[in-house]
């Protein structure tokens, strides 16, 4: 579903992604781990063109999205993204947050969009917050709404960029549980996370990045028992 070939990304003079090659199959859950500043976010953002790759190819469903003639909006509709800091629309209530894009972008009717929003809110356990405004929600609730908002576009792929890093510890679980459910439902996803327990439990594959490179790609079991690279080993020693 995603194929990345020889992806490079520079900001000005500094190259922050060097020759990334990987792929994500339909239904696969990939977690991306690595030290801060290693390029995890930039890599994720190249997949939905929040960052424009400097060179290389990114194929989404066999379409090269680095082609300048591509319809970016079309691609983005197929890819949901969840941010570390939620980025809910503060002037809209939860229902409007969930229905605005489907109605505006996909032309869904109000009734249709609302029905789906209600189902999604039930799924993330927030049915009673339909009318609430974001600033009245806790961090964990905000992030669950943000996940529901991305799902309302019915994407093929979900990207998560450290979805629990901005949360108070007691709210991490409620968000991870939602993401786990989603993983088990067969959603294709790429999750950048520092939650090693989560990665071990949910991931089909771990991508370990360091200094703008993919250093290692392995099964979670073998990765956490004994990674191939020394750099991954020393990273794990620090975080586990």
């Amino acid at each position, binding site marked *: 579903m995603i194929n990345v070939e020889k992806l490079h990304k520079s900001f000005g003079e500094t190259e922050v992604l060097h020759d990334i090659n990987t792929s994500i199959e339909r239904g696969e859950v990939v977690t991306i781990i690595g030290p801060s500043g290693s390029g995890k976010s930039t890599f994720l953002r190249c997949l*939905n063109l*929040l960052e424009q790759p400097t060179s290389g190819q990114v194929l989404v469903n066999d379409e090269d999205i680095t082609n300048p003639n591509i319809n970016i*909006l*079309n*691609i*983005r*509709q197929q*890819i*949901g*993204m969840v*941010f570390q*800091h939620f*980025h*809910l*629309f*503060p*002037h809209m209530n939860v229902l409007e947050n969930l229905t*605005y*894009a489907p109605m*505006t*972008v996909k032309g869904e009717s109000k009734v249709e969009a609302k029905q789906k929003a209600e189902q999604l809110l039930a799924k993330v356990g927030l049915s009673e917050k339909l009318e609430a*405004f974001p*600033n009245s929600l806790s961090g964990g609730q905000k992030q669950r709404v943000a996940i529901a*908002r*991305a799902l309302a*576009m019915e994407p093929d792929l979900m990207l998560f960029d450290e979805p629990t890093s901005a949360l108070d510890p007691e709210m991490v679980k409620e968000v991870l549980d939602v993401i786990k459910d989603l993983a088990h439902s067969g959603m294709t996803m790429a999750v950048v996370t520092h939650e090693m327990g989560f990665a071990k439990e949910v991931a089909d594959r771990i991508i370990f990045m360091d200094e703008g490179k993919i250093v290692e790609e392995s099964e979670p079991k073998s990765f956490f028992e004994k990674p191939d690279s020394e750099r991954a080993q020393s990273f794990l020693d620090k975080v586990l």
Partner: protein
Amino acid sequence: MNLDFSQIVPYIPFMLEGVWVTLQFVIIAIIFGFILGSLIALVKISRFTLLKWLADFYTSIFRGTPLILQLLLIYYAVPQLTGYDISPFLSAILTFGLNSSAYVSEIIRAGIQAVDKGQREAAEALGIPYRPMMIKIILPQAMKNILPALMNEFITLTKESALVSVISYLDLMRRAQVVSSDIYRSFEPLLFVGLLYYAMVMVLTLIGKYVERRMRASD
């Protein structure tokens, strides 16, 4: 103490009329400046490099030279260059409108850029196109920054409008001078129109406070 307000009493209707004369061109200049300023702000946040440069240049000209110079230039230069005999009223609207548009465009640009850039990214990630994103997501949030600053700009414009007295436009300020030379007293008419300016600014301030409160309530 040599104060005698009785002498200005016959002139009170004449001076009060000045409030309306001043308001007339101030309101038109505010609307003109706001519309033009909004358009210039759109250019400033766009991707058209040359247009952006022009918009920045335009802004810096109006912010970088004295308002009275701009007023006199327009009043004297237009007839000299084009042969069109521009009226004080039109000169005033043009000068204050153009000048205000420069400030308004900066206020709107800054207000939009102060919106958390995550908002834009979230909208983009959902595939929302530029126009609806701007209108429904970015601008409503920018309003909170923009409105108070706009209100300030309108108050400044109202006060600075007194400058048009130098091109003999019979505004509130000019009327105080006319009365002064009639009765050989300056202090009383100046104090009187001073109170009128103060009242106008207070009304604007109250409107601004009301709007701000409404915005906060809708938060």
